[in-house]
């Protein structure tokens, strides 16, 4: 039995982190958070090399950071569905679109929906739902959509689910493009409301396109809150049920875990988180239109979670960061982006199916299956 200290040295970074005392972890998280908060203002070299607006034509740095965080929220939500419950959802973009369109349709005075309400209920011209109320509306609609889609399809085999959800994503996009009376069709909805706040010195709303860092901080705060919630879920009864279903649905059913019920939960929670991300996106853009919700984005979301490490929140966040940041920093990559994702997806699945920063339990599940296959092969 080797000395405890040598064991500790041999262990990787994650083990060290998990076994260090609480104050070390608190301090470490505090420093990371401080760095994250400071990021929009980094301008001292060599650290400023991470910025995306160094050359002319580069993207606004705060804007990129906000997009990264919004996609991190997406990855957190999709991770619940793919990583924890083991359901492949290829139509996640649908929920994202529902979130964006909810805030646009109810919150913007220019949308057909608010105009209809104003005309039929004798409300004043330019009436719209305040942003704060749009949030629960968006979450409620996404939850409903999640349940409506999930209830009939979650009883199907896993691979059918993937295709049906993909269909759902396309249907949402086609509806948003074609239903002119509901969504303004291809013209999109303008004047999407922003979160409330004191007006700035120049009379701008608090969350405006110029002070991009405020959006970034807002999204960061929401991301942290969601991560905390998801982690609580993971270690709760619900999370354990997901794990059981993922590993062996029949065995779980024998133990009294209703597969359908918990899958539906995962689906609905994922949908709600996706809608929150979409809502932030729509509100930040202040303009929502159908081409922003192409199916390719759905594959991109899946790639984030899977390349990062499905089932592991940190992994999913890392995946979201990689896939959003790299093409922005290295603009010459952006056209090659889908190709690189494809190659990365295949390579990761063949060489490291558990992802770059894996969930250990999942990695063991895969390893077990591989060993089983080898046993069968040697039996021959």
């Amino acid at each position, binding site marked *: 039995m080797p000395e405890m200290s040598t064991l500790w040295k041999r262990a990787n970074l994650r083990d060290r982190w998990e076994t260090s005392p609480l104050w070390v972890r608190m301090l470490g998280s505090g420093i990371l958070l401080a760095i994250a908060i400071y990021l929009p203002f980094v301008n001292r070299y060599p650290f400023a090399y991470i910025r995306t607006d160094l050359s002319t034509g580069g993207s606004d740095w705060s804007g990129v950071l906000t997009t990264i965080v919004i996609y991190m929220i997406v990855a957190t939500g999709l991770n619940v569905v793919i990583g924890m419950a083991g359901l492949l959802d290829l139509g996640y973009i649908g929920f994202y679109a529902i979130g964006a369109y909810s805030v646009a349709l109810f919150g913007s005075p220019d949308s057909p929906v608010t105009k209809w309400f104003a005309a039929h209920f004798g409300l004043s011209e330019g009436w719209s739902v305040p942003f704060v109320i749009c949030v629960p509306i968006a979450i409620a609609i996404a939850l409903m959509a999640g349940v409506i889609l999930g209830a009939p*399809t979650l009883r199907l085999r*896993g691979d059918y689910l993937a*295709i*049906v959800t993909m269909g759902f994503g*396309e249907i949402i996009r*086609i509806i948003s493009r074609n239903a002119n009376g509901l969504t303004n069709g291809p013209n999109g909805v303008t004047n999407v409301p922003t979160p409330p706040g004191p007006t700035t010195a120049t009379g701008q709303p608090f969350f405006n396109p110029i002070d991009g860092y405020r959006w970034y901080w807002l999204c960061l705060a929401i991301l942290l809150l969601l991560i905390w919630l998801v982690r609580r879920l993971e270690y709760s009864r619900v999370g354990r049920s997901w794990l059981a279903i993922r590993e062996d649905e029949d065995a779980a059913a024998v133990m009294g875990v209703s597969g359908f019920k918990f899958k539906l939960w995962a689906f609905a929670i994922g949908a709600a988180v996706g809608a929150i991300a979409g809502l932030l996106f729509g509100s930040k853009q202040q303009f929502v239109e159908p081409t922003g919700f192409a199916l390719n984005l759905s594959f991109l979301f899946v790639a984030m979670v899977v390349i990062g490490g499905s089932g592991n929140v940190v992994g999913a966040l890392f995946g979201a960061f990689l896939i959003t940041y790299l093409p922005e920093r290295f603009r010459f990559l952006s056209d*090659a982006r889908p190709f690189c994702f*494809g190659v990365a997806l*295949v390579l990761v699945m*063949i060489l490291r199916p558990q992802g770059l920063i894996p969930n250990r339990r999942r990695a063991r599940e895969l390893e077990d299956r591989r060993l089983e296959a080898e046993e069968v092969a040697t039996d021959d």
Partner: protein
Amino acid sequence: MNFHELFAHFGDLTVDGLTKGSIYALVALGYTLVYGVLKLINFAHSEVFMVGTWTVLGAYSLVGADEGSGVGLIILATLLAIVLAPLASAATALTVERVAYRPLRKKNAPSLIFLITAIGCSLVLVETFGWLLHAIFGPPFGRAAVSIPSLIPEKELISSTWITVSNTQVIVIVSAIVMMVGLDTFVNRSRLGRGVRAVAQDPDTAALMGVNQDRVIMLIFVLGGAMAGIAAFLYTLRYDITKFDIGFLIGVKAFTAAVLGGIGNLRGALVGGLLLGVVEVYSSTLFSSNWEDVTAFVVLILVLMVRPTGILGESLAKARA
């Protein structure tokens, strides 16, 4: 709801739907064969079809055939396309199998991993034509649609108030049905086909009986790929166009057709394909062509809800066991 239009052109629409449906059916065969044996949705199959359409274009430009070319050149180009398109498609399908699926099979990976790999392969293939080849060779590759010369000009064979049938429609429908019957006979009557059915029914027992599993799996990818290549040729004959992402919608529709007829069931693919093609054409006339692509998805969701095993039931093994 434009019922008048639907009834006024009912015959034409039906023939048009059957033409579309024949192409869906041929592509659906690829999904059905692979699913029947491996229980895997080969998401990259749509791209196998896409490669076929580009190969047709390549074959035409190889011999320099154009719309105004002489009869000899046209026959030569067409024959070349009929040979090369299935070959290229089959080679693509086989490559995907060897590079991506086989390592995963050896690891006994769960189906989620297979599906994600398949999506990855599909992205790689799409982007090869949309970006990689464009970056190397420039046009015609790239993200714009490319027109393919229609070597066999459209001619109306039957033209009455009730029904109009053109020569390409007849060619598409007839050759699709001939291919389907041929494949069905092959799987049900030949020695190799017996191996396919055996592996579909019980891979382990089949292996005990001396069936080489890996060979059967390669065979089904080649067969499915070749059918997609034929479908690609027929598609270019009828619609004269290709694009880097042309496979996606056709793939989804063909998959829907396979599920509709009963995935894993060869005859189901024909029934499902023809039915879906007709339903799609009717519905796009009834509503508007904007909604055409929703039809397949809605049909798919309804079928899976009401009868997940499809019209004829899913089974390659029991087709004529």
